[in-house]
């Protein structure tokens, strides 16, 4: 009779897991940190951790497809002579021509226009195609001021002063040389093929007092017509919102850490900034404390994927949301039909995030004419419009179930949380209780 010593199966470290060790080896081999696109990939408390209660004896619902549930939103009612009114509170976030192909920008404009919402320029300026295909176009005013000129400022429908973004609060950007085509270089006044640094702070103002004067200048240049947004990353949402209001914003855009970027260090994306869910209530609180809730509109972005996410963001007090990554997916990003080509790039559909390299098989995050030609802007625009309509219908479905005849009538009171973390961040009760962390001093 033989005896075998029992062996436990090999055990890998939770601290030094496969991904961590692969990253150490990659860093050691290349001597450079990992740069990638998109937002955080780690799991953070999110809208999935919230549920709507729906109607019951104490609240009656509205009839689906029959009783009206309004979705319109007007942005810029505080100071602008010409506020913008959108059919749906789901807008398209700022993404640059340069990071995205011309066809991709056109598709975003087409889709947003069909759905009755706005799209937004990005670092690198406004293209004629984008203006032409976007009924309502928000013009980003960024630290780099690439392509910035007063003519485009005047032909925009709103101006978004970008202070930060959720993927990298406190960070700038870098468009690598391989994406700098002649046209991109010309728009940015830089030689072709060199890395283009997007500055992390504005060149001609620092702090909220300066920002107030900068906004005065922008309003004077545009004769007080355009709504002026201020976009901040999810960092200190209470104070950033309060300071944006103080500086004279018509609209505050608040972008959580799930919000995407064209290219940033992975360490930045994963370790700086707060989840979208944690940002909304402090921002709304700031607006309420100042008596400005619904007077200065709040647009929330970062990880919005469905009508449920939209409804939850609005229930927590936002006036509208913005989508970036989801819009790219809708027009064709990371589509499994390109799986073979993703494999050649060492990745797989759903994980492709080397948007800065310009080799996107889907033709979206590229300036390569052959790759870009793969994206039909008309068909892609239609897909985006369909998706926006589905999200809007989903949000309406939920709102009606809660007895609301406008998406803005959704309340925190309509929500419960599935986890302690989500309860604390959203300040709504843990499901089945009347309590959330922090309430009543506990």
């Amino acid at each position, binding site marked *: 009779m033989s005896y075998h010593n029992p062996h436990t199966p090999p055990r890998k470290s939770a601290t030094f897991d496969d991904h961590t060790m692969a990253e150490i080896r990659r860093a050691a081999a*290349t*001597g*450079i940190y990992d740069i990638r696109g998109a937002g955080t990939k780690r799991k953070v408390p999110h809208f999935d951790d919230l549920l709507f209660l729906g109607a019951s004896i104490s609240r009656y619902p509205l009839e689906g497809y029959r009783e009206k549930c309004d979705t319109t939103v007007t942005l810029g009612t505080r100071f602008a002579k010409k506020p913008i009114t959108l059919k749906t509170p789901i807008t398209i976030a700022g993404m640059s021509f340069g990071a995205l192909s011309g066809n991709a920008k056109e598709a975003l404009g087409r889709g947003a226009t069909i759905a009755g919402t706005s799209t937004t320029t990005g670092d690198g300026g406004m293209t004629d195609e984008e203006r032409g295909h976007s009924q309502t176009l928000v013009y980003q005013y960024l630290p*780099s*001021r690439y392509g*910035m*000129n*007063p*003519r485009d*400022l005047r032909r925009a429908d709103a101006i978004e002063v970008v202070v930060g973004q959720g993927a990298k609060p406190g960070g700038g950007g*870098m468009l*690598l*040389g391989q994406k700098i085509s002649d046209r991109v270089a010309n728009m*940015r*006044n*830089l*030689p072709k093929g*060199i*890395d283009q*640094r997007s*500055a992390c702070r504005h*060149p*001609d*103002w620092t702090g909220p007092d*300066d920002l107030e*004067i*900068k906004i*005065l*200048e922008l309003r*004077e*240049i*545009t*004769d*007080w017509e355009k709504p002026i947004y201020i976009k901040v990353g999810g960092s200190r949402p209470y104070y950033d919102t309060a300071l944006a209001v103080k500086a004279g914003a018509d609209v505050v855009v608040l972008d959580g850490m799930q919000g995407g970027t064209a290219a940033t260090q992975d360490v930045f994306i994963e370790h700086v900034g707060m989840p979208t869910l944690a940002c909304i209530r402090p921002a709304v609180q700031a607006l309420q404390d100042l008596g400005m809730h619904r007077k200065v509109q709040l647009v929330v972005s970062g990880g919005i994927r469905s009508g449920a996410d939209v409804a939850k963001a609005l229930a927590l007090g936002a006036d509208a949301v913005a989508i970036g990554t989801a819009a790219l997916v809708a027009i064709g990003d990371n589509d499994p039909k390109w799986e073979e080509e993703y494999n050649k790039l060492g990745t797989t559909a759903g994980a492709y995030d080397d948007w800065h390299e310009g080799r996107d098989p889907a033709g979206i995050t590229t300036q390569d004419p052959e790759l870009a030609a793969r994206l039909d802007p008309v068909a892609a625009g239609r897909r985006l419009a369909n998706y926006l309509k589905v999200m809007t219908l989903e949000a309406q479905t939920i709102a009606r179930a809660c007895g609301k005849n406008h998406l803005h009538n959704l309340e925190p009171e309509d929500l419960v949380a599935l986890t302690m973390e989500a309860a604390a961040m959203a300040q709504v009760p843990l499901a089945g209780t009347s309590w959330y962390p922090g309430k009543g001093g506990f």
Partner: protein
Amino acid sequence: MPVFDLSHTPLRALNGALHGLSTGANDTEFEVVNPRGHHAVAVGIDSPVTVEVRGSVGYYCAGMNDGGTVTVHGSAGPGVAENMMSGTVVIEGDASQYAGATGRGGLLVIKGNAASRCGISMKGIDIVVHGSIGHMSAFMGQSGHLIVCGDAGDALGDSLYEAKLFVRGSVKSLGADCIEKEMRPEHLEKLAELLDKAGVTHAKPEEFKRYGSARKLYNFNIDNADAY
């Protein structure tokens, strides 16, 4: 000549009057009195008007000027002529921080001194300073010319792209990737042209040194990390 007295006329009335003037408009010469440090004076000009500002101004005077000629008979606060597209802006006194920031064209003349970050992120503008400039000037300058008849402060031309810098006096220090470069005939010619346009009579082109980008930081390289 329309005169705007900012001691009682709203800023909006001045800037509104300067915008969208049709071709052949009769009134193309404007005077602003009692500016009293107002911000955003004569911003967003989009036609070849002339504006004489009698006194000192606050932030962003002549911001985004596109074709106008603005003269400030006093000093200017931060960001004068920021993002200028074309035209001419003359400051008879001194200018504060960020003068000519991100300017894409036109000529900015500062007859006194300019503070820090003069010409930051300049994108085609020409700037002539009769006096001296502060630290971090022409930071990330992309194109255009910065001419300084006096001295330059610390970190001149840090992270410079293709802007061309000329300094007649001393340079306290050069920023990352900024080096002294050979002065060739075409540079002397350009200097002479801009000095003349800016009304500089006390300095000759041969007295300047030229600075530009070493172009070592144009494409990211981990071995250059110490330079950042």
